[in-house]
């Protein structure tokens, strides 16, 4: 063996040794720490939302640990999370889940960001019977596979814009409306679409345009030109942040007049900031808003959470952060009720979860989705050049009246 080869072998064995000694120090519960694992998108196309998710997790871990931690069998434990960067890649996420479970010995998982990645990880956690509380996978298909160890604190995607159709029908005097819709061809947006189809059927509404959007969307002029010709009552667009931004840019440029415009991802796209007044009157689905009146003892209210989050991370929390924080509250509650670290006991406790957090009520349905929390709708409203998201539905939390119909572009300043 020559010198370089020897050096190489030494190097590799040193790394292996280091890894072994490093990983063996982690287990499901290590001293006073309960170790959770999460693969999360810190790089790649989901990195901004991945960071929002991680910040939400970290904020809750700090808060719970500071306020006494988790009490199991009379002893206080603290949370700790092992993170790996999944590079926004589903295959990588599944590998990392495997690694967290098999090498790092993690027994409880927190979800990644996005439906696609959650879908990639769920079969792994299911295989090893690892309870996973996830906060960022809303796709309906996650909850129809019969997973027993998957719990989602958020409302499923098909509920995102159903409320909007109900609202449109209500404004139309209870009669069905004409819907034009454009959805990206990904799991999440397609679920939102299914929700709209259901709502249309239920209310006797008619879908007159149903355009699929590509992943590389940056131009939807064709769809909008068609919308101008057929004049629907509602235009629904869902294609993540690029869909929201492209839609508003081209609707304003092409002067497309629709009485109602409903979208997803407005807050993630910072719509009201990036497009200002052009985005006014857009109706957006959201899992959470800081003005809702839910409360818990860790974060107080949504407003308080937003203030603390702003102080710690320097920006207003998007709902992705809030729901991620809520996932930790769910885990704490389940550990304490299970009063054990047995995976199945924790899993059973999760099934029986029924609690209120600052983020909303949480109770899991048979598929693992949260059935206790409705989606909310907000509308972008502007005062001068200052635009803001105002909650308009459900009426219980509405801070503003829903503005309908949207004034024509020729009448807008």
């Amino acid at each position, binding site marked *: 063996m020559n010198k370089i080869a020897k050096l190489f072998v030494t190097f590799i064995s040193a790394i292996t040794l280091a890894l072994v000694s490093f990983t063996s120090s982690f287990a499901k519960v290590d001293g006073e720490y309960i170790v959770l694992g999460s693969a999360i998108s810190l790089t790649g196309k989901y990195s901004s939302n991945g960071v929002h998710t991680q910040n939400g997790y970290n904020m809750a871990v700090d808060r719970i640990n500071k306020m006494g931690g988790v009490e199991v069998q009379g002893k206080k434990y603290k949370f700790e999370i092992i993170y790996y960067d999944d590079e926004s890649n589903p295959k990588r996420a599944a590998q990392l889940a495997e690694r967290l479970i098999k090498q790092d010995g993690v027994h409880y998982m927190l979800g990644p960001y996005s439906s696609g990645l959650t879908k990639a990880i769920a079969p792994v956690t299911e295989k090893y019977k690892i309870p996973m509380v996830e906060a960022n996978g809303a796709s309906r298909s996650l909850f129809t596979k019969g997973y027993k160890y998957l719990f989602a604190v958020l409302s499923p995607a098909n509920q995102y814009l159903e409320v909007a159709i109900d609202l449109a029908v209500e404004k139309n005097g209870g009669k069905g409306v004409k819907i034009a819709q454009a959805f990206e061809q990904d799991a999440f947006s397609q679920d939102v679409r299914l929700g709209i189809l259901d709502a249309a059927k239920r209310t006797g509404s008619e879908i007159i345009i*149903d*355009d699929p959007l590509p992943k590389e969307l*940056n131009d939807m002029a064709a769809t909008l030109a068609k919308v101008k010709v057929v004049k629907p009552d509602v235009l629904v667009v869902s294609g993540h942040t690029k869909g929201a*931004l492209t839609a508003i840019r081209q609707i304003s440029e092409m002067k497309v007049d629709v009485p109602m415009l409903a979208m997803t991802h407005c807050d993630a796209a910072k719509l009201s900031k*990036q497009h200002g007044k052009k985005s006014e009157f857009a109706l957006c689905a959201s899992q959470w808003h800081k003005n809702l009146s839910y409360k818990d003892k860790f974060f107080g209210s949504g407003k308080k959470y937003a203030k603390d989050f702003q102080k710690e991370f320097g920006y207003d929390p998007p709902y992705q952060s809030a729901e991620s924080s809520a996932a930790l509250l769910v885990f704490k509650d389940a550990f304490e009720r299970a009063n054990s670290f047995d995976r199945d006991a924790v899993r059973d406790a999760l099934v029986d979860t029924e609690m209120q957090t600052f983020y909303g009520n949480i109770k899991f349905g048979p598929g693992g989705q949260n059935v206790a929390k409705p989606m909310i709708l907000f509308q972008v409203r502007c005062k001068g050049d200052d635009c803001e998201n105002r909650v308009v539905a459900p009426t219980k939390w509405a801070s503003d009246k829903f503005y309908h119909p949207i004034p024509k572009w020729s009448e807008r300043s």
Partner: protein
Amino acid sequence: MDFLIFKAPILMVQASMDGILIGILFALIAYGMALQWGVMNIINIAQGDLVILGGYIAYTIYLWGIHPAWGVIISPIIMFFVGWALYKLVINKVVDRDLFISILATFGIAIVMQQLMNFIFGADVVVAQSEYGTTMLFDNSVTLPNSKIFSAFISVLYAVALVIYMKKSRLGRAIRATAQNARAAKILGVDTEKVYAATFGINAALCGIAGALISITLTLHPYVGLPYTVRSFMIVIVAGLGNLPAVAVSGMGLGLFEEFADYILGTEFRIGAVFLLLVLILVYRRFKLSRKREYLK
């Protein structure tokens, strides 16, 4: 429903206008690709990513409160040096090798650029606002965003300026000489190394202009460069390397094709249709080439 375009002919006018305006922009990107392909025999996979980087430069100055239209001047200046640096760092090592090596190298550059842009500018989709308003035709039924008209105008302006520059200037003549015969040019005293660097820089500058225009007409995201690479590749394949009018025409043709594909097949298949067209063109070109070869035998 998808055939609405045939029921409402006004949509044809809209589609044609949109197609031509956006096609001119594609032609500008393709022109840069044709230039450096012709001179250096390099197919630049990172072309689209250079465009997006140019767009982010315009977006950055927009964030500083400067009107993003200034991007069409600032962005190419910065991008010229980016291109120059890329040449000195990577391209000069592969410029004499075969085409495959250069494709691999520029593919690598593309990945690194995407990740760096993601790192620096974030993964969010961003837009710059030009506030140029809209031109309405035919009783408001056809709308043309002024930003698209502006972008077509600027593209034509720069393309014409570059043609004149290539014809009249010393460097332009050196570039053309190198393209015709690099060895002969070298013997006659042309510093081909410098010519290559300048060519790559000029190509990057053209991408910078296109990027700045995209930031005000469409949207920017670190990972949307590839469709621009494919489009320019296709335009160049159809038009050939040394023929600017052909590049312009095939650029507009592609724009029209995309818009009509969008109306007829749906937005989902817009890029799909472009890729399909690329395959068809490649098959056809190869067919033609192989026939020619047989003839030569």
